[in-house]
């Protein structure tokens, strides 16, 4: 990163914890709201972060979500320890899901998470190592009118 971070925060995510799942994303949303980030940008960041967080809750053992705010963009990094993704191209397809029936009963497993993260990002990177884990980088640009 060649830009100075105005703000940098880290949150832990526990795999399988549906009670607290989504907490990190809600905290990030509240932090950015307080700073006065534009509502539409805020919504895109919150949705992308939440879908990424819930994937860690559903599929991985544990993870970390990092928020970095620079004068020009918001960067969310989600790094997990888990099974990783065999076929990223397939996982990115709308409707593809390996969610269990229990997860579906809780309202997840539509297979729209990763596509929706991409849709809400200006730049989206995903890297995964099978048996190790998955890293996501979500970048959302601020308009000049912001900061």
């Amino acid at each position: 990163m060649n830009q100075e971070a105005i703000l940098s925060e880290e949150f832990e995510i526990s795999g399988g914890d549906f009670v607290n799942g989504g907490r990190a994303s809600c905290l990030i949303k509240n932090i950015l709201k307080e700073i006065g980030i534009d509502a539409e940008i805020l919504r895109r960041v919150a949705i992308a972060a939440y879908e990424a967080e819930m994937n860690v809750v559903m599929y991985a053992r544990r993870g970390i979500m990092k928020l970095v705010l620079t004068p020009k963009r918001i960067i969310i990094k989600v790094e997990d320890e888990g099974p990783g993704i065999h076929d990223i191209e397939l996982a990115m397809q709308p409707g593809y899901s390996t969610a269990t029936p229990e997860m579906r009963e809780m309202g997840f497993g539509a297979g729209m998470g990763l596509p929706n993260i991409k849709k809400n990002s200006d730049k989206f990177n995903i890297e995964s190592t099978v048996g190790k884990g998955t890293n996501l980088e979500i970048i959302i640009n601020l308009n000049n009118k912001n900061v």
Partner: protein
Amino acid sequence: MKLSELKELLKAKELTNHISLNVEIRSVIASDLMSDVLHSGVPADLLLTGLANNQVVRTCDIAGIKAILFVRGKVPPGETIKLAEECTIPLLVCEHSMFEACGIIYSKGLKPLE
């Protein structure tokens, strides 16, 4: 329509304490799929759902949805109600099925998202 009027219309019960029902409801989404709720470009004002867990509240907080109505008498656990109070999202529950509740609300002129 105000959420308080909608509550009367559906004979709904209020689950949250001290969260104002003086909320203007213009658009509604009905779904049990949280990713569907998160997929729309603009937030609805109200979510109708048959799912009653923490993730429903989180999803609405994230998506900017102002209120939740549970159908078929589904009451979420106490921790979910507490979470909604923390997020200032009012929770209501009615006995109507999803289909009936949607029909009643629709007939009053409330609109889905475009």
